[in-house]
Protein backbone atom coordinates (compact mmCIF):
# COMPACT_ATOMS: atom_id res chain seq x y z
CA UNK A 1 0.00 0.00 0.00
CA UNK A 2 1.56 3.25 -1.09
CA UNK A 3 1.10 6.79 0.14
CA UNK A 4 -1.03 7.57 -2.88
CA UNK A 5 -3.33 4.58 -2.76
CA UNK A 6 -6.31 6.56 -1.51
CA UNK A 7 -5.84 9.27 -4.08
CA UNK A 8 -6.12 6.67 -6.80
CA UNK A 9 -9.57 5.90 -5.47
CA UNK A 10 -10.36 9.60 -5.38
CA UNK A 11 -11.29 9.60 -1.69
CA UNK A 12 -8.66 11.97 -0.34
CA UNK A 13 -10.67 14.04 2.11
CA UNK A 14 -8.97 16.64 4.25
CA UNK A 15 -8.28 15.77 7.86
CA UNK A 16 -9.85 17.90 10.51
CA UNK A 17 -7.51 17.90 13.50
CA UNK A 18 -4.55 20.07 12.54
CA UNK A 19 -3.51 23.22 14.35
CA UNK A 20 -1.11 26.11 13.88
CA UNK A 21 1.83 23.75 13.30
CA UNK A 22 0.13 22.76 10.08
CA UNK A 23 -1.68 25.89 8.92
CA UNK A 24 1.15 28.33 9.62
CA UNK A 25 3.89 26.15 8.21
CA UNK A 26 5.45 26.86 4.86
CA UNK A 27 8.45 25.76 2.86
CA UNK A 28 9.56 22.41 1.50
CA UNK A 29 8.96 20.39 4.66
CA UNK A 30 5.54 21.95 5.22
CA UNK A 31 4.49 21.21 1.67
CA UNK A 32 5.86 17.68 1.79
CA UNK A 33 3.93 17.01 4.98
CA UNK A 34 0.77 18.41 3.44
CA UNK A 35 1.09 16.29 0.29
CA UNK A 36 1.57 13.11 2.31
CA UNK A 37 -1.23 13.95 4.73
CA UNK A 38 -3.69 14.94 2.06
CA UNK A 39 -3.19 11.78 0.04
CA UNK A 40 -2.50 9.11 2.59
CA UNK A 41 -5.67 8.53 4.49
CA UNK A 42 -8.22 10.64 6.25
CA UNK A 43 -9.49 8.20 8.80
CA UNK A 44 -12.52 7.39 6.72
CA UNK A 45 -14.77 9.58 8.82
CA UNK A 46 -16.68 10.90 5.85
CA UNK A 47 -19.81 9.20 4.62
CA UNK A 48 -21.06 9.26 1.10
CA UNK A 49 -24.61 10.44 1.36
CA UNK A 50 -25.15 10.30 -2.36
CA UNK A 51 -25.90 14.00 -2.21
CA UNK A 52 -27.04 14.47 -5.79
CA UNK A 53 -28.58 17.85 -6.50
CA UNK A 54 -32.11 17.88 -7.83
CA UNK A 55 -32.36 18.56 -11.56
CA UNK A 56 -28.60 18.38 -12.05
CA UNK A 57 -27.96 17.66 -15.71
CA UNK A 58 -26.11 14.37 -16.03
CA UNK A 59 -23.61 14.89 -18.80
CA UNK A 60 -22.59 12.00 -20.96
CA UNK A 61 -19.52 10.14 -19.84
CA UNK A 62 -16.51 10.64 -22.10
CA UNK A 63 -16.19 7.99 -24.73
CA UNK A 64 -19.89 7.15 -24.61
CA UNK A 65 -20.43 9.21 -27.74
CA UNK A 66 -18.18 11.31 -29.88
CA UNK A 67 -18.12 13.83 -32.70
CA UNK A 68 -15.73 13.34 -35.59
CA UNK A 69 -13.40 16.28 -36.19
CA UNK A 70 -13.89 17.77 -39.66
CA UNK A 71 -10.19 18.65 -39.89
CA UNK A 72 -8.27 15.61 -38.61
CA UNK A 73 -11.03 12.95 -38.34
CA UNK A 74 -10.23 12.24 -34.68
CA UNK A 75 -12.98 11.56 -32.19
CA UNK A 76 -13.86 14.63 -30.13
CA UNK A 77 -15.36 13.79 -26.73
CA UNK A 78 -18.89 15.12 -26.43
CA UNK A 79 -18.99 18.45 -24.62
CA UNK A 80 -15.51 19.64 -25.62
CA UNK A 81 -15.41 22.93 -27.52
CA UNK A 82 -12.23 21.88 -29.29
CA UNK A 83 -10.77 18.83 -30.95
CA UNK A 84 -8.28 17.49 -28.42
CA UNK A 85 -5.98 16.27 -31.18
CA UNK A 86 -5.67 19.22 -33.59
CA UNK A 87 -7.41 22.02 -31.65
CA UNK A 88 -10.11 22.65 -34.30
CA UNK A 89 -13.10 24.48 -32.82
CA UNK A 90 -16.34 22.47 -32.72
CA UNK A 91 -19.25 24.22 -34.39
CA UNK A 92 -21.68 24.26 -31.49
CA UNK A 93 -24.67 24.88 -33.77
CA UNK A 94 -24.03 21.59 -35.66
CA UNK A 95 -23.74 19.20 -32.70
CA UNK A 96 -25.44 18.91 -29.33
CA UNK A 97 -22.78 19.59 -26.68
CA UNK A 98 -24.57 17.28 -24.25
CA UNK A 99 -25.04 14.09 -26.30
CA UNK A 100 -23.21 14.65 -29.61
CA UNK A 101 -26.32 14.29 -31.77
CA UNK A 102 -26.25 16.05 -35.16
CA UNK A 103 -28.61 19.03 -35.12
CA UNK A 104 -30.90 20.28 -37.87
CA UNK A 105 -30.29 23.92 -38.99
CA UNK A 106 -31.47 26.58 -36.48
CA UNK A 107 -32.38 23.99 -33.84
CA UNK A 108 -33.17 25.46 -30.43
CA UNK A 109 -33.22 22.14 -28.60
CA UNK A 110 -31.60 18.77 -29.21
CA UNK A 111 -34.18 16.31 -30.53
CA UNK A 112 -32.46 13.43 -28.74
CA UNK A 113 -31.74 14.71 -25.21
CA UNK A 114 -33.67 17.99 -25.08
CA UNK A 115 -30.59 20.07 -24.26
CA UNK A 116 -31.01 23.80 -25.06
CA UNK A 117 -28.77 24.93 -27.93
CA UNK A 118 -26.86 28.15 -27.41
CA UNK A 119 -26.85 30.91 -30.02
Amino acid at each position, binding site marked *: MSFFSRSS*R*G*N*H*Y*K*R*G*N*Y*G*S*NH*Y*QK*KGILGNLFKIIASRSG*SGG*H*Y*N*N*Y*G*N*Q*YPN*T*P*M*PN*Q*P*GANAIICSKCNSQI*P*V*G*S*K*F*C*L*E*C*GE*KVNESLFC*MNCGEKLPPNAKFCLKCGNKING
Partner: protein
Amino acid sequence: MWLWRAKRYSGKQLDRYTIEGPIGEGRYGMCFLAKSASGNMVVIKQFKPGIFKRNSQKNIYEAIILSKLKDKRIPELLGVINQKGFYGFILEFKHGNTLKDLLYKYNHKFTSEEFFDTGIQLIKIIRYLHENGVVHRDIRIPNVLINNGEVYLIDFGLARWADNNQYSYDLDFSYLGDLLLYLLYSSYEKKEKYKNLPWYKELSLTCEQKLFLKRLLGLEAVYKNICDIETDFVNAFKPK
Protein backbone atom coordinates in the same frame (compact mmCIF):
# COMPACT_ATOMS: atom_id res chain seq x y z
CA MET B 1 14.58 22.36 -14.28
CA TRP B 2 12.40 25.45 -13.88
CA LEU B 3 15.14 27.78 -15.15
CA TRP B 4 16.00 25.44 -17.97
CA ARG B 5 12.40 25.33 -19.15
CA ALA B 6 11.99 29.08 -18.66
CA LYS B 7 14.95 29.64 -20.94
CA ARG B 8 13.87 26.98 -23.43
CA TYR B 9 10.33 28.28 -23.90
CA SER B 10 10.57 32.05 -23.27
CA GLY B 11 9.89 33.94 -26.49
CA LYS B 12 8.84 30.76 -28.30
CA GLN B 13 6.02 31.12 -30.82
CA LEU B 14 3.21 28.54 -30.53
CA ASP B 15 0.28 28.84 -32.88
CA ARG B 16 -0.57 32.56 -32.55
CA TYR B 17 0.82 32.90 -29.02
CA THR B 18 4.23 34.02 -27.77
CA ILE B 19 5.36 32.48 -24.48
CA GLU B 20 6.54 35.02 -21.91
CA GLY B 21 7.63 32.63 -19.17
CA PRO B 22 6.56 29.86 -16.75
CA ILE B 23 4.03 30.66 -14.01
CA GLY B 24 3.36 27.28 -12.39
CA GLU B 25 4.24 23.62 -12.32
CA GLY B 26 2.46 20.45 -11.32
CA ARG B 27 2.40 16.71 -11.84
CA TYR B 28 0.63 17.29 -15.18
CA GLY B 29 3.46 19.48 -16.56
CA MET B 30 3.89 23.24 -16.62
CA CYS B 31 1.89 26.46 -17.04
CA PHE B 32 3.20 29.36 -19.12
CA LEU B 33 2.05 32.92 -19.44
CA ALA B 34 1.69 33.84 -23.11
CA LYS B 35 0.53 36.74 -25.24
CA SER B 36 -1.76 36.42 -28.24
CA ALA B 37 -1.20 38.28 -31.50
CA SER B 38 -3.84 40.79 -30.40
CA GLY B 39 -2.01 41.43 -27.11
CA ASN B 40 -4.29 39.43 -24.78
CA MET B 41 -2.61 37.46 -22.01
CA VAL B 42 -3.42 33.73 -21.81
CA VAL B 43 -2.19 30.73 -19.85
CA ILE B 44 -0.85 27.72 -21.75
CA LYS B 45 -1.07 24.56 -19.67
CA GLN B 46 1.46 22.19 -21.18
CA PHE B 47 1.14 18.49 -20.41
CA LYS B 48 4.23 16.39 -19.98
CA PRO B 49 4.96 14.35 -23.10
CA GLY B 50 2.97 11.15 -22.89
CA ILE B 51 0.85 12.10 -19.90
CA PHE B 52 -2.12 13.11 -21.99
CA LYS B 53 -2.04 9.88 -23.96
CA ARG B 54 -1.43 7.75 -20.86
CA ASN B 55 -4.31 9.26 -18.91
CA SER B 56 -6.38 10.45 -21.84
CA GLN B 57 -9.67 9.23 -20.41
CA LYS B 58 -9.00 11.21 -17.22
CA ASN B 59 -7.45 14.28 -18.79
CA ILE B 60 -10.28 15.02 -21.18
CA TYR B 61 -12.54 15.88 -18.21
CA GLU B 62 -10.81 19.22 -17.76
CA ALA B 63 -11.48 20.18 -21.39
CA ILE B 64 -15.09 19.00 -21.32
CA ILE B 65 -15.91 20.56 -17.96
CA LEU B 66 -14.32 23.92 -18.84
CA SER B 67 -16.17 23.83 -22.18
CA LYS B 68 -19.45 23.58 -20.30
CA LEU B 69 -18.80 26.19 -17.59
CA LYS B 70 -19.28 29.83 -18.52
CA ASP B 71 -18.55 32.13 -15.61
CA LYS B 72 -16.19 35.05 -15.11
CA ARG B 73 -14.92 33.49 -11.86
CA ILE B 74 -13.57 30.47 -13.75
CA PRO B 75 -10.98 30.48 -16.57
CA GLU B 76 -12.40 29.85 -20.02
CA LEU B 77 -10.94 27.17 -22.29
CA LEU B 78 -9.73 29.10 -25.35
CA GLY B 79 -8.13 26.35 -27.39
CA VAL B 80 -5.90 23.31 -27.70
CA ILE B 81 -2.32 23.32 -29.01
CA ASN B 82 -0.74 20.18 -30.45
CA GLN B 83 2.35 20.91 -32.46
CA LYS B 84 5.97 19.75 -32.60
CA GLY B 85 5.67 17.60 -29.48
CA PHE B 86 4.08 20.41 -27.46
CA TYR B 87 0.61 19.54 -26.18
CA GLY B 88 -1.41 21.93 -24.05
CA PHE B 89 -4.62 23.80 -23.30
CA ILE B 90 -4.96 27.54 -23.82
CA LEU B 91 -6.80 29.08 -20.88
CA GLU B 92 -8.01 32.54 -20.04
CA PHE B 93 -5.53 34.35 -17.78
CA LYS B 94 -6.95 35.54 -14.48
CA HIS B 95 -5.15 38.38 -12.75
CA GLY B 96 -4.53 38.42 -9.02
CA ASN B 97 -2.59 36.75 -6.23
CA THR B 98 -3.15 33.21 -5.06
CA LEU B 99 -4.18 32.76 -1.46
CA LYS B 100 -0.91 30.88 -0.98
CA ASP B 101 1.11 33.92 -2.04
CA LEU B 102 -1.01 36.26 0.05
CA LEU B 103 -0.52 34.10 3.15
CA TYR B 104 3.09 33.02 2.85
CA LYS B 105 4.77 35.48 0.47
CA TYR B 106 3.08 38.70 1.60
CA ASN B 107 2.15 37.49 5.12
CA HIS B 108 -1.31 38.96 4.71
CA LYS B 109 -3.51 38.72 7.80
CA PHE B 110 -7.17 38.32 6.90
CA THR B 111 -9.55 40.49 8.91
CA SER B 112 -12.94 39.03 9.80
CA GLU B 113 -14.51 41.11 7.00
CA GLU B 114 -11.97 39.87 4.42
CA PHE B 115 -12.39 36.32 5.67
CA PHE B 116 -16.15 36.55 5.23
CA ASP B 117 -15.95 38.21 1.77
CA THR B 118 -13.49 35.61 0.50
CA GLY B 119 -15.36 32.67 2.04
CA ILE B 120 -18.78 33.64 0.75
CA GLN B 121 -17.50 34.29 -2.77
CA LEU B 122 -15.75 30.93 -2.82
CA ILE B 123 -18.87 29.16 -1.55
CA LYS B 124 -20.88 30.79 -4.36
CA ILE B 125 -18.38 29.54 -6.93
CA ILE B 126 -18.63 26.01 -5.49
CA ARG B 127 -22.42 26.34 -5.61
CA TYR B 128 -22.22 27.22 -9.30
CA LEU B 129 -20.02 24.18 -9.95
CA HIS B 130 -22.21 21.79 -7.98
CA GLU B 131 -25.37 23.07 -9.66
CA ASN B 132 -23.71 22.15 -12.94
CA GLY B 133 -22.83 18.67 -11.70
CA VAL B 134 -19.11 19.37 -11.26
CA VAL B 135 -16.93 18.53 -8.26
CA HIS B 136 -13.58 20.41 -8.31
CA ARG B 137 -11.62 18.15 -5.91
CA ASP B 138 -8.68 20.53 -5.54
CA ILE B 139 -9.90 23.66 -3.76
CA ARG B 140 -6.60 24.62 -2.16
CA ILE B 141 -4.84 27.91 -1.44
CA PRO B 142 -2.66 27.83 -4.62
CA ASN B 143 -5.81 27.42 -6.74
CA VAL B 144 -7.80 30.38 -5.43
CA LEU B 145 -7.00 33.86 -6.77
CA ILE B 146 -7.99 37.25 -5.39
CA ASN B 147 -7.94 40.35 -7.52
CA ASN B 148 -9.34 43.62 -6.12
CA GLY B 149 -11.49 41.67 -3.68
CA GLU B 150 -12.90 39.37 -6.39
CA VAL B 151 -12.34 35.62 -5.94
CA TYR B 152 -11.51 33.23 -8.80
CA LEU B 153 -11.09 29.46 -8.83
CA ILE B 154 -8.53 27.90 -11.18
CA ASP B 155 -7.00 24.50 -12.03
CA PHE B 156 -9.71 22.07 -13.06
CA GLY B 157 -7.23 19.25 -13.67
CA LEU B 158 -8.85 17.02 -11.02
CA ALA B 159 -12.45 18.16 -11.63
CA ARG B 160 -14.99 15.46 -12.42
CA TRP B 161 -18.71 15.02 -12.97
CA ALA B 162 -20.12 14.26 -9.54
CA ASP B 163 -21.56 10.82 -8.86
CA ASN B 164 -22.82 8.94 -5.85
CA ASN B 165 -19.67 6.93 -5.46
CA GLN B 166 -16.11 8.06 -6.13
CA TYR B 167 -16.70 11.74 -6.89
CA SER B 168 -19.17 13.06 -4.37
CA TYR B 169 -19.75 16.75 -3.66
CA ASP B 170 -18.58 16.49 -0.06
CA LEU B 171 -14.98 16.15 -1.29
CA ASP B 172 -15.17 19.89 -1.99
CA PHE B 173 -16.66 20.55 1.45
CA SER B 174 -13.64 19.09 3.25
CA TYR B 175 -11.24 21.10 1.07
CA LEU B 176 -13.29 24.26 1.72
CA GLY B 177 -13.07 23.68 5.49
CA ASP B 178 -9.31 23.19 5.27
CA LEU B 179 -8.89 26.34 3.15
CA LEU B 180 -10.97 28.46 5.54
CA LEU B 181 -8.70 27.37 8.39
CA TYR B 182 -5.66 28.68 6.50
CA LEU B 183 -7.37 32.09 6.33
CA LEU B 184 -8.33 32.03 10.01
CA TYR B 185 -4.80 31.07 11.04
CA SER B 186 -3.34 34.03 9.09
CA SER B 187 -4.18 36.33 12.01
CA TYR B 188 -3.52 33.81 14.79
CA GLU B 189 -0.66 34.46 17.22
CA LYS B 190 0.57 31.31 18.90
CA LYS B 191 0.77 31.57 22.69
CA GLU B 192 2.00 28.21 23.88
CA LYS B 193 4.97 27.50 21.68
CA TYR B 194 5.45 23.81 22.22
CA LYS B 195 1.86 22.64 22.46
CA ASN B 196 0.49 20.87 19.46
CA LEU B 197 -3.26 21.49 19.59
CA PRO B 198 -5.97 21.04 16.96
CA TRP B 199 -7.58 24.13 15.44
CA TYR B 200 -10.77 23.88 17.51
CA LYS B 201 -8.72 24.21 20.70
CA GLU B 202 -6.42 26.96 19.43
CA LEU B 203 -8.63 29.41 17.53
CA SER B 204 -11.10 31.72 19.27
CA LEU B 205 -14.31 30.66 17.62
CA THR B 206 -17.96 30.62 18.66
CA CYS B 207 -19.73 27.27 19.09
CA GLU B 208 -21.60 27.94 15.85
CA GLN B 209 -18.37 28.62 13.95
CA LYS B 210 -16.70 25.50 15.37
CA LEU B 211 -19.65 23.32 14.46
CA PHE B 212 -19.72 24.75 10.94
CA LEU B 213 -16.04 23.97 10.34
CA LYS B 214 -16.29 20.55 12.02
CA ARG B 215 -19.16 19.64 9.70
CA LEU B 216 -17.13 20.70 6.67
CA LEU B 217 -14.19 18.62 7.82
CA GLY B 218 -16.25 15.56 8.64
CA LEU B 219 -15.78 15.74 12.43
CA GLU B 220 -19.56 16.22 12.83
CA ALA B 221 -22.46 15.27 10.58
CA VAL B 222 -21.38 16.17 7.06
CA TYR B 223 -23.32 18.77 5.06
CA LYS B 224 -25.52 17.43 2.32
CA ASN B 225 -25.36 20.37 -0.05
CA ILE B 226 -23.62 23.67 -0.64
CA CYS B 227 -26.78 25.73 -0.08
CA ASP B 228 -26.87 24.69 3.60
CA ILE B 229 -23.18 25.57 3.84
CA GLU B 230 -23.84 29.04 2.43
CA THR B 231 -26.64 29.68 4.93
CA ASP B 232 -24.65 28.45 7.91
CA PHE B 233 -21.53 30.34 6.85
CA VAL B 234 -23.47 33.62 6.72
CA ASN B 235 -25.08 32.94 10.11
CA ALA B 236 -21.78 31.99 11.74
CA PHE B 237 -19.29 34.42 10.23
CA LYS B 238 -21.07 37.51 8.91
CA PRO B 239 -19.47 40.48 10.74
CA LYS B 240 -21.98 42.21 13.00
